[in-house]
């Protein structure tokens, strides 16, 4: 089984082929940026992109992601280390508190801005409703998404 993650193809060892995608990413491939929180696909801490669409990797069998393009938080910045505008806006707005949910929040925000380049509050609330933050950083997340939208459109 092969897994293409952040542009790199990885061989998945036999004993890992019945795991969730999240377990393989974290424990087999060492990409620990996507996090386990609820384990039932309800909180969004584990969100990655599969063929450009967000997915909860904690409930996705790794076999169903084989051969598809997987993007994780580790693949968001440029190869030269330059941050994606969403990541930079997350820093500029001081979004994280404990930080545990933030990888998933950022990946979900990326999906939103791909679909809706200029989201309003309702768009944001709807798109981000599957991403929980126990620290309650929702207001800063909303500000960051709006700011990133401007940056990505060359308006900021």
């Amino acid at each position: 089984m092969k897994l293409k993650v952040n542009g790199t193809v990885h061989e998945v060892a036999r004993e890992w082929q019945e795991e969730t995608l999240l377990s393989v990413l974290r424990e087999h491939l060492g990409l620990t940026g996507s996090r386990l929180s609820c384990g039932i696909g309800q909180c969004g801490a584990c969100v990655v992109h599969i063929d450009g669409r967000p997915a909860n990797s904690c409930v996705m069998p790794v076999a169903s992601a084989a051969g598809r393009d997987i993007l994780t938080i580790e693949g968001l910045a440029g190869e030269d280390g330059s941050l994606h505008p969403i990541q930079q806006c997350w820093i500029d707005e001081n979004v994280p508190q404990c930080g545990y949910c933030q990888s998933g929040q950022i990946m979900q925000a990326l999906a939103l801005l791909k679909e809706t380049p200029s989201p309003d509050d309702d768009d944001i609330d709807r798109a981000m409703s599957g991403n929980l933050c126990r620290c309650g950083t929702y207001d800063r997340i909303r500000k960051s998404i709006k700011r990133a939208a401007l940056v990505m459109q060359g308006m900021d």
Partner: protein
Amino acid sequence: MTKLSRRKFLIATGCVAGGLTIVYKLRNRAMASAPTIIFPNEESGAAWLQIRPDGVCRMYFPRQDMGQNANTGLAQIVAEELNIEVDDIEGILPNTSAVPPLAVTAASMSLTAFSRPTALAAATLRESLRARAAERLDQPVDHILDDSGGFRTAKERKVSYADLVDETGAVIEFDDSKPAPAIYTFDSSRKKTQVGHTITPPGTLKLVTGEPVYAADTRIEGTLYGRALQPPVRNAHIATLDTSGVDHVRGLVRLVHEDNFVGVVCETPSAVDAAMAKINVTWDLEQPINQEEIDRLVDVDIEMAKGDLEHVLQDDAHRKDIDWDIDLRFDVQVQTHAQQEPRAAVARFNDSGADHVLEIWTGTQDPWAIKRSAAMDTGLSQDDVVVYPQRMGGGFGGREYYEVERDAVRLARAVNRPVKVQWTRKDEFTASRCRPASAHRLRIATDSRQSVRLVVWLCVRPCRPREGADGGLAAIRPSPGHRYGRNKRCYRPLSSAASTRRVHGCRSAN
């Protein structure tokens, strides 16, 4: 308690390797009391700052990090005192062998307790550097002016901190018998460059790029995965246990059953799930749950009907016939801390000859509690155990005890391999310590000008006993001035104004 000699401490932290280091002590409130560090030794609470030979300020953060940013605030204080930026500080979360024990990170006391000692230490370090600058520039000390990252003279001769320290290393022992240096942080007349300003907390970049910072992100070669059964309530005992299906789970390494502890170690996380699902268990409860009795115990009105608590009047205005302007009852249900990160730990046992027999990576509010508990649990000396604290994905007061670490330690010992344990969300809600239910009666009386004249707050809540005392229902922080004990009823009028009447008292449940 392990006593870490000053020399051992300095070597462990690299202070003697080079640069200029100040060792300072955090005062009484920084000394640990609850939950585990009961007898702090003279080294307790020590922390240190260092200017490395390259001029970088290294700071061993004295608080555990769960996103509350206490260390950010303390780093701002250090930056203020040293005329540098927070980005110029290399912050390190020390392991339990690197520094003497620090108090549990809890109760929102970090800045209150740590800010002044930190400012004093940084100011002492700055003034020591200023004396060196004076010698180097052949000027009187009072002619050496502050500059960014160093000092200057009135004629703009500059010297940086890197110019003032070398590879030989030196240590300043903070001496509180001498006059304290000027502390910039608390000088209200001084325009602050760091304190009070919004900054990006150290570590934010790692959070938005997904770098490993949490316990479950720890990766050690040869790691196995494990989990243990969690009893439905504390002190429950296994009545019946059927593990006959576990042996057939592919990827199982070991089923571990020691008295009331049952866990599995497997090659992969899903094998752990499969093995745990095959365990059938029933529990005996020492004390059956009686919700009606709990409700009765946590009822402030029932308690008030028993009459006044034993108390001492501090003035004569606490009268039964007072007209209360506000009289409200609040009931707080049992609350779980429900942090975003299910707690996790990695444990590894090493062969003799290693610096430590047992290593533990975990996110905890009290690493020294974990160290002590692990030593007691395994029969090791505390010197043989080291805890590497990791960032926590939330804590909220619920991560102070030896819980997931116990599971990892026992399983790792059973298989003599590193074992990673991460609780499930169900484990979190079943087995983690909760904030217990409480009931409150708040009464406020005002005077003719509508100013608060008297506030009385009565609360009924279960409290955790001190070690060695009788058991209680659950654990919460006691009110100042009250002893721990079984199911206290606390009667604590507040002192919110000069005219407020103060009465204190409490009693145990019947």
